[in-house]
């Protein structure tokens, strides 16, 4: 009798339920977001400017090589076909001005002809982004360390060639089963010819400001890194092998 009175005094089961519900809400809505920190791409690259603006098609920068590997991020060699700043000329100009070649701000402020004359952008923001790319990376001979939204660790071997033949239209039939594997919005609207949207940011070719790279603070991987079970599910649905060495190295 006293116990019931005592428990009634502290509210009964109520606090338990409050605690439970509170953490449920927090644990589903708030905490998962805390696992990630946002990182910006090293240089502002706008697909819209290049695809719509310059009329480049996907294969100009993203293509299959002859040996079957996929060239994902284009190298400086590819970018320099249009952003034709001669690194040697630029470095000479920098040396002439007596600027420290690693002092990027000073180089950009100096507005050297070797660089400025070869920039192709139209408005100021774009010009600044292009300038940053040229000064920090192109003339330094350094590749841009792009952040890969679909980052996979070294022990994973992903083959673009083996996924070449997938079509979004055909996969739409498995929409329900693939709802956890790919973004369901991929199947909405008219199915594009290429299947990049299945795993990569939808309609990236029209994107002007790339979304922030969300890095998991514990594992270091991207939020959109496809996990093993997702690959396995689709493999199983499509009758493809799920042997370990299919994907690991």
């Amino acid at each position, binding site marked *: 009798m006293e116990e019931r009175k005592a428990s009634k005094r*502290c509210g009964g089961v109520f606090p*338990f339920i409050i605690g439970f519900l*509170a*953490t449920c809400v927090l644990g589903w809505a708030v905490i998962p977001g805390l696992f990630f920190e946002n990182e910006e791409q090293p240089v502002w690259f706008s697909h819209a400017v290049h695809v719509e603006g310059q009329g480049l098609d996907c294969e100009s920068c993203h293509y299959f090589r002859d040996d079957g*590997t996929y060239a994902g991020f284009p*190298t400086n060699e590819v970018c320099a076909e249009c952003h034709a700043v001669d690194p040697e000329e630029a470095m000479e100009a920098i040396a002439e001005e007596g600027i420290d070649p690693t002092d990027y701000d000073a180089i950009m402020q100096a507005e050297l002809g070797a660089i400025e004359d070869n920039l192709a952008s139209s408005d100021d923001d774009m010009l600044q982004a292009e300038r940053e790319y040229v000064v920090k990376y192109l003339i330094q001979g350094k590749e841009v360390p792009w952040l890969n939204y679909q980052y996979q*660790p070294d022990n994973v071997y992903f083959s673009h060639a083996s996924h070449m033949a997938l079509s979004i239209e055909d996969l739409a039939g498995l929409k329900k089963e693939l709802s956890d594997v790919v973004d369901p919005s991929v199947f909405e609207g008219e199915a594009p010819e290429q299947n990049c949207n299945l795993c990569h940011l939808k309609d990236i070719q029209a994107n002007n400001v790339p979304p922030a790279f969300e890095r998991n603070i514990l594992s*270091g991987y991207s939020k959109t890194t496809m996990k093993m079970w997702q690959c396995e599910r689709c493999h199983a649905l499509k009758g493809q092998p799920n042997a370990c060495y299919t994907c690991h190295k």
Partner: protein
Amino acid sequence: MSVARRTFIQLGAGATVGILFTPTVWKALDDVSIWTQNWPWIPTLKYGAIENKPTVSKMCESGCAVKVRTVAGEPFGTMGNEDNPISGGGICPLCANGVQVKNSPNRIKAPMLNGEEITWEKAQEVVAEKLAAAGSKVAVVSGDQTGTANEVFSALLADKGSDAFYVMPCDMQAADKAWTGLMGGTGQIGYDLEGADLVLLAGADALESWGPTVANLKSFAANESGKFIFAGPMQTKTASVTSKWVPVPAEGMAAFTLGIAYYVLQAGKTADTADFGQFKAMVMSEYSPAKVEAATGVKADQMAALAKQLLTASNPVVVPAGPVAAHGAAFALNLLLGGAMKALPEFAKAIPSAMSRSEMLKADILEGVEADLLFVYEANPAYALPEKIKAGFTVAFDMVQTETTATANLVLPSPHPYERFDDLASPYGLAAATYSLGAPVCESSVDASNAATFILGLADLGFESFEEVIGAKTEAIGADMDALQGGEAYVVEGQTPMAASLAANVLGKASVPVKGTGTVGLAPYTLLNVGTANQATTPNAPCTISNNQLIGDHMVVMMGSATAKQLGVTVGAKVKLSGGKGECEALVQIFEGVMPGVVAAPLGLGHTVGDEFSKGKGDNVYKILTVSSEAAAGASTWAGSTVNVAKI
């Protein structure tokens, strides 16, 4: 309701249970498990386009044609070059580790004058000054047997009125002395190992470290019906795949070869030289089977059997190694047999004032070198020829730190073969004159400069850079630069060798076996994975070095059980070998593939300067080799080295 302690506990309990119904804990565990797989000190890989770029490698003395595998422009491995006859698709353990040697912290990072870093401009000044002061007392020691860089160095010497060009002791030199020196022949001797139906390797460890090893191995494998026989004091790795091992002491190789010639002459074979009669008389009287058996221990019926095989073969060849006399005897035998020995024409020079190959091979480094100014190009005489080299001022060009660079006055870093223009012309042993070249695969990671280009800045030889010299060489030869840069070789067929004389008198005297005074004979052998005279073992190679060469930090010497009994030692006994001017410590291993009365010791160990993989491992057998003079032949040789063995 009042808020009591129990409330909080209930709240806490609810929260704890609640969190388990959310992804939080499970995701955190999953992410932490991934975190444990990705320690920051484990290197991550770089990805990009994979290209295999052809070039030449000078890691061994002959040089080879390889393809460097690169990813996103960064070299990571080496593979063979199928399109090039020097490689045929395979490579040796040295080149297999070429990229790792290139990236080694043991690289010389910048020019060093007496231990202090200086600029290339200052280095040029210093050398120019020394050069002017030295007058004609300039010498060059080159470790590169086949490159046109030698033309640049010899042209510099010619410009200063010096002819002191030295190569490290090698069979190419002994062969040339015998062929062009004693026998008046022309061209460079080559051996058609692929086309021969019987190959007698008279001391030549052709399938391990003699000559263009990879090309030899390829020829051996391609020669499906041919029979290979190895003669020598120990069963080297070559002997593990030949049909037979004939035990012959190193100093008796010439006599053994002439002993076989006895039977071949007896069968009626002749050679078209003026002194053939004299030669035949000499062999029949002084190198009869009984006499050879007495001098070398090789049984007469062994030699008779070998002679019979050589006579019945349609395209036989004898491949010599060691002293000049052994080479002369083998060439004479090959001329009698008329088989697969070839004479290769020499390629035209790029620099007119440069020495010809024969001229470069004339000076005998074992007699010692003395100069006011000495250039050492990618060779390690301080290690392999201790105390032989004396110079007022030494300039050493090398890729990595060695005993020679440690003692040189001026050390100049040369780029790794994959980082520079280089070429190779007819490595000694190939059956056809072959020219290959390579362009840089990547930029040098250190402040290195092509050695030949540096030398071109010291005298007016008509070229500004080594790249130009190579261009001129290619033109002079009549080869296609694009094809060569693409990895192909320019090949000119070998010709039938013709000698003016069989050097009867000299060979007769020089072939008499001469041995040292120690208790046991010393059979030094070279394994590529252990290292050569110029290149120490590479970073990934130590795990390939067996307990027959090295145990822990101790060198191992091999001997037969009979020899061990004679010396009173057993397996694992620590012994001291004294010979020449030095001594070595080693452990004993019993190996029945060594002749009685002989101890086999591996060359290439005992480095005192180098990276952690080669330094302090074993002992340096070059210290205990004895030099005996082949007075009659005008040369010196290491064959016939003996040692005293004492238990420690």
